[in-house]
């Protein structure tokens, strides 16, 4: 599919460009056609991913459409048959020189101290064509030098050339029109409303697209000059969208990420969390040496000692209790190669199938692999219908949100959201089906016209339901963005709903999973019951004979089951591969009991976390920008990850750690390099057949979607059991159903260890609809008594119009009220009682 958009389109028109006849496409802007034919027309306001506005006038060129040559902005002019264009005529040059001079008369001469210096389009144009001296003898416009317009972005209005790129991006692309042109004429400036900062999740993009140094990012300010930066292209692993990014460093320190325009994925955009998480690569608290617990405390140790210690624990567990007593949790932040190495170590050497890269907050791997899949481009294809049944994409998969937003606003895509609370997409959704928690499947039944278990379609607005049905009935493909909208309820309803929706003809799914390489980890076997290549244990065993010493006989446990077993004393050794169940598992009480219940924890990580600090052995891992390999995004798109800097101390890549552990257990995993592993993956994993060659011959920027060609290998279309509910949970007026989603900024490693972002998490509070709020008789910010299954706590409460009546919202992994403390993972749905401390109870 990606190929279609990137194929060279044969010209439908012929234009004359500087005396040469060249082809142009119908509807193609002149500036783009010229660039395609190697003729660069200078510009500042034009940006290929935004609506042209023709404001800066730098791109005016002489165009003759049969009525004599006139000056036309080439960014606003669509090519027409026979058009004669001269980008180099005297008239064109004079006009462009004039515009450049106009832009410079009020532009300050502070290039030497400007972050943009060296990569500044205005500076470049001036160097190339500008006048040697200024004819402007008056004083320039003055504004207060940079003013912070958010925690992350500073604005220098003197440098601004009013090109409308940032303001257009904010309104049109991000939907956050918090910066705007203010005042008029020569006094025009960009600014925010007083005391209302540019708090957009996408603000960093405005810094990147600013054609001068008017917008700068706090974390990069005065850090480096562009000519001192070295860069490699890579793929962001902050979430599973997999945005292409240029990693830039100087003196072995990562200093900046810049979005790269991958046509099938991110269009050049990044979210601020992804963009500014580079600070966490350089964090002072990075683990740089192995730690081994001696005398009750973690103390630095040599690698040989730490590996031997870990191997000894694993070996003795194997000997005493068998492989089933070992569990491996994590792996979703690794490269594909490391994921494969860990799968081989766990399943092929240790022989345990208790392996899960997800932390009880995802979808069963069989569902991920078993449903027909759609790419982002297919989801966003003009004219179709998208059903978003999952998390708030703006919070969890921000650039997917941008793509969906664009598709709805510009390409006529009809978007139906099925969610327990309003989301970032609600405002533009064709139909927003906000339902009672735990009744997702009921909504799906109503949508496809199946009889419901209840009478009110999960409580959704009936008019919206009609609109949604009409959207589907309008025909065209249906693409479902599928994930977990709330981790406070069982995944089974999501699976049931997905199954119901898959009965709509021509339906396919995009898996909205958390964590950068969760898809690669599942594909390569870090999931119970699966082997590399999207195959079951039985289906894949034959592929691995000769490559793997052993393959587990029967499916093992997922993370929830492992933690439950550990809490009950049935799991002896737990290996945490970059996983922190105390922070990330939905039920913190269970996680706490599980970690206390195992004999030994072995952890690999980049930072010491709540969980890894309980380990017996901690192995420091190299992280993003410190390792090379490949990664797989939520579409199944494999792209290349590149190393730019060396890891701190003696930290090592995860595949090498796996390899060393295997060696200490007496097994050679059989690879000495990342390339060796990729080669083995290409032969061992059916879905990845031919991957190494395909990557070598593909565009680095776009990567390749696996499986590469032909029908999916038969074994990959996994069957999964669809849970069917036969009754709805009773609704009680005295209790509130808990909904737990995530905010972009949480207390996870990326934010916590990036100084520029540490103030951004919203903090925890219980969020209620105004109706329930009033019912409780509390005021904004009051403390209330929250009675959860496992504990009763006092927590602040706030009004949130996104939360419907009868539900209570709590964000995951925030300071203050932490949702994981409230969730009981053994219950199908966590239900709370909330009492005012003034003595009034909900519903009383």
């Amino acid at each position, binding site marked *: 599919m990606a190929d279609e958009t990137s194929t060279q389109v044969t010209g439908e028109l012929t234009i004359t460009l500087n005396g040469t006849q060249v082809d142009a496409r119908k509807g193609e802007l002149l500036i783009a056609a010229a660039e395609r034919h190697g003729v660069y027309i200078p510009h500042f306001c034009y940006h290929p991913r935004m609506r042209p506005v023709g404001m800066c006038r730098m791109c005016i060129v002489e165009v003759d459409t049969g009525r004599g040559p006139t000056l036309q902005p080439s960014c606003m002019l669509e090519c027409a048959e026979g058009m004669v264009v001269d980008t180099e005529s005297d008239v064109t040059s004079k*006009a462009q020189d004039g515009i450049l001079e106009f832009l410079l008369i009020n532009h300050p001469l502070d290039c030497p101290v400007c972050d943009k210096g060296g990569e500044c389009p205005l500076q470049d144009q001036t160097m190339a064509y500008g006048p040697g001296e200024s004819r402007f003898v008056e004083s320039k416009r003055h504004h207060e030098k940079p003013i912070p317009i958010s925690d992350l972005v500073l604005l220098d209005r003197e440098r601004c050339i009013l090109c409308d790129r940032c303001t257009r991006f904010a309104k049109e692309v991000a939907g956050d029109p918090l910066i705007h042109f203010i005042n008029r004429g*020569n006094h025009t400036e960009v600014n925010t409303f007083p005391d209302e900062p540019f708090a957009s999740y996408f603000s960093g993009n405005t810094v990147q697209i600013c054609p001068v140094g008017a917008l700068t990012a706090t974390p990069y300010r005065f850090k480096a000059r562009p000519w001192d930066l070295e860069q490699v292209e890579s793929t962001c692993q902050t979430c599973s969208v997999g945005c292409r990014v240029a990693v830039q460093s100087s003196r072995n320190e990562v200093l900046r990420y810049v979005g790269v325009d991958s046509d099938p994925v991110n269009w050049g955009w990044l979210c601020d969390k992804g963009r500014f998480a580079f600070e966490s690569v350089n964090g002072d608290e990075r683990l740089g040496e192995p730690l081994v617990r001696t005398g009750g405390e973690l103390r630095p140790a040599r690698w040989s000692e730490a590996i031997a210690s870990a191997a000894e624990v694993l070996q003795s567990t194997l000997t005493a209790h068998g492989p089933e007593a070992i569990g491996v949790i994590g792996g979703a932040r690794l490269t594909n190669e490391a994921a494969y190495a860990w799968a081989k170590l766990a399943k092929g050497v240790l022989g345990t199938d208790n392996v899960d890269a997800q932390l009880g907050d995802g979808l069963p791997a069989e569902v991920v692999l078993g449903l027909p899949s759609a790419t982002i481009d297919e989801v966003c294809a003009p004219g179709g219908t998208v059903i978003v049944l999952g998390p708030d994409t703006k919070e969890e998969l921000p650039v997917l949100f941008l793509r969906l937003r664009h598709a709805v606003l510009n390409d006529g895509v009809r978007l139906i959201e099925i969610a327990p609370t309003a989301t970032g997409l609600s405002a533009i959704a064709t139909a927003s089906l906000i339902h009672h928690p735990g009744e997702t499947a009921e909504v799906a039944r109503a949508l496809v016209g199946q009889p419901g278990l209840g009478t009110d379609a999960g409580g959704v607005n009936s008019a919206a339901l009609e609109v949604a049905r009409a959207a589907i009935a309008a025909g065209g493909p249906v693409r479902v963005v599928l994930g977990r909208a709330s981790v406070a309820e069982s995944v089974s309803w999501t699976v049931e709903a997905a199954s119901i929706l898959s009965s709509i003809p021509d339906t396919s799914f995009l898996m909205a999973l958390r964590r950068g390489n969760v898809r690669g980890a599942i594909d390569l076997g870090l999931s119970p019951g699966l082997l590399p290549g999207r195959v079951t244990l039985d289906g894949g065993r034959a592929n691995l004979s000769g490559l793997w010493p052993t393959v587990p006989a029967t499916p093992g446990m997922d993370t929830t089951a492992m933690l439950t077993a550990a809490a009950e004393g049935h799991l002896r050794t737990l290996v945490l591969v970059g996983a922190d169940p105390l922070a990330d598992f939905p039920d913190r009480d269970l996680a706490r009991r599980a970690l206390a219940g195992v004999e030994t924890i072995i952890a690999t990580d980049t930072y010491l976390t709540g969980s890894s600090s309980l380990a017996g052995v901690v192995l420091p891992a190299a992280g993003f920008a410190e390792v090379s390999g490949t990664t797989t995004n939520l579409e199944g798109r494999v792209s290349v990850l590149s190393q730019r800097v060396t890891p701190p101390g003696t930290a090592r890549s995860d595949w090498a750690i796996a390899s060393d552990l295997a060696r200490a257990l007496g097994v050679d995993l059989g690879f000495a390099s990342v390339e060796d592993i990729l080669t083995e993956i290409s032969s061992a994993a059916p879905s990845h057949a031919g991957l190494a060659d395909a990557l070598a011959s593909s565009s680095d920027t776009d990567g390749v979607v696996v499986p590469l060609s032909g029908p999916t290998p038969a074994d990959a279309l996994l069957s999964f059991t669809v849970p069917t509910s036969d009754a709805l949970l009773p609704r009680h007026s005295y209790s509130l159903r808990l909904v737990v989603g995530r905010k972009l900024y949480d207390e996870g490693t990326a934010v916590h260890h990036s100084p520029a972002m540490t103030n951004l998490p919203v903090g925890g509070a219980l969020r209620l609809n105004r109706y329930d709020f009033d019912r409780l008789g509390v005021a904004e910010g009051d403390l209330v008594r929250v009675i959860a299954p496992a504990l009763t706590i006092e927590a602040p409460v706030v009004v949130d119009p996104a939360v419907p009546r009868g539900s209570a919202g709590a964000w995951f992994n925030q300071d203050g009220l932490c949702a994981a403390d409230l969730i009981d993972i053994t219950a199908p749905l966590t239900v709370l009682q909330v009492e005012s401390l003034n003595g009034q109870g909900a519903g009383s």
Partner: protein
Amino acid sequence: MTVSDVAPIITSRFANPDAHTLSGYRATGGYQALAKALSMSPEAVANEVKEASLLGRGGAGFPAGVKWGFCPPGVWPRYLVVNGDESEPGTYKDRMLMERDPHQLIEGVLLACYAVGCGQAFLYVRGEMALAQERIAAALNEAYAAGLVGRNIMGSDFSVDVILHWGAGAYIVGEETALIESLEGERGMPRLKPPFFPAAKGLYMQPTIVNNVETLSNVPWIVNNGAAAYNELGAEASRGTRMFAVSGHVKNPGVFEVEFGTTTFRDIIFDPRYAGGILGDRAVKAFIPGGASAPWFFEEHLDLPLEKGTVDRAGSMLGSGAIVVMDETTDVVRACLSLVRFFAHESCGKCTPCREGTTWLERILTRIISGQGRPTDLDLLLDVSDNISPGIAWPPKQTTICPLGPSAVSPISSALTRFRGEFEALIDDAVAARTAVTPVEITVGSHG
């Protein structure tokens, strides 16, 4: 207010103190055109206006009936936007029409909506015109109550709301695409034409007719009396009558409705029935024939008729019907600055050459007047002008989005071409004054 020997068309009720009321309007034939139109097909009404050579009175002079025909067939809804944002310096006529005969305008609006099929009309009145706003509001309230506006007008199936909307102070909003932006609640910044011609993509990107107040005020008369009667007046394409404001150094400044196309500048400036000649019987130094944006005319142009084509060919325009007369005592450099400062102040800031260029021109002129001129300044003025309006020709070419930037060039090019010596004298004086100053002694090494 004086009237020529031709019976007035649009100012006929100006003498009646109750012309702005419904009863006053009806007593003088008001809303008869509407009743007549409702008995005709919309197409027939549109044809009648198209037959009449009714040139738009806002400035560009495009035939209104032809403009009505530009809406793409079958695309609905269509809107009508009335441009009552009169603000071109020298122009004073639309305000008078709105204050003194609001029903005539409303009737014209209704006729246009009926003929074109506009589902809703917006009457955009300049923000600073409080009395016009009051008179139109009162007139609309009366007309609504009388069943003349709103649902089922005069009992027919013709239904349209006419919404009174006020501006808030921005000259550029008089440009039709900026007017539309403003009506959408945006900053009044012009759109690029192409691709956004209002008749195809206007208000809310729907087909939209934007007509000037004076233009629409002619429509009831045309429907009542027929295009043929209208075309009997005037010459060439300039038919009917037209309102001109004559201001500046004249004895009897005023707004005069005269026969279009035949009356000459000399007539309207010197005839005792009109402006009555130059103050103190001094000589004419220059006059602006069509508002601040128009290149200046001089003595030798006085016998040109007020006819669009003729004036265009002579290198200027009738624009918004604003004639500003400057006598021989006028300081043209100051007059020039006054005009250029206006355009710099009113530049919307959207495109670079207008935002930066007009301000630069203003600052150079200010420098020259304040005794800081340099010998290179006159060439600089012309070159900056050239970068806004390449070739400094008429009709102007532009590197800008809309004609505002080139409008600032008109006074500079007119004044510099004709009166360069007056600029040079100021600069020479400044240079002489600077050289006469004794250099300040600087003592090296002292901090005193």
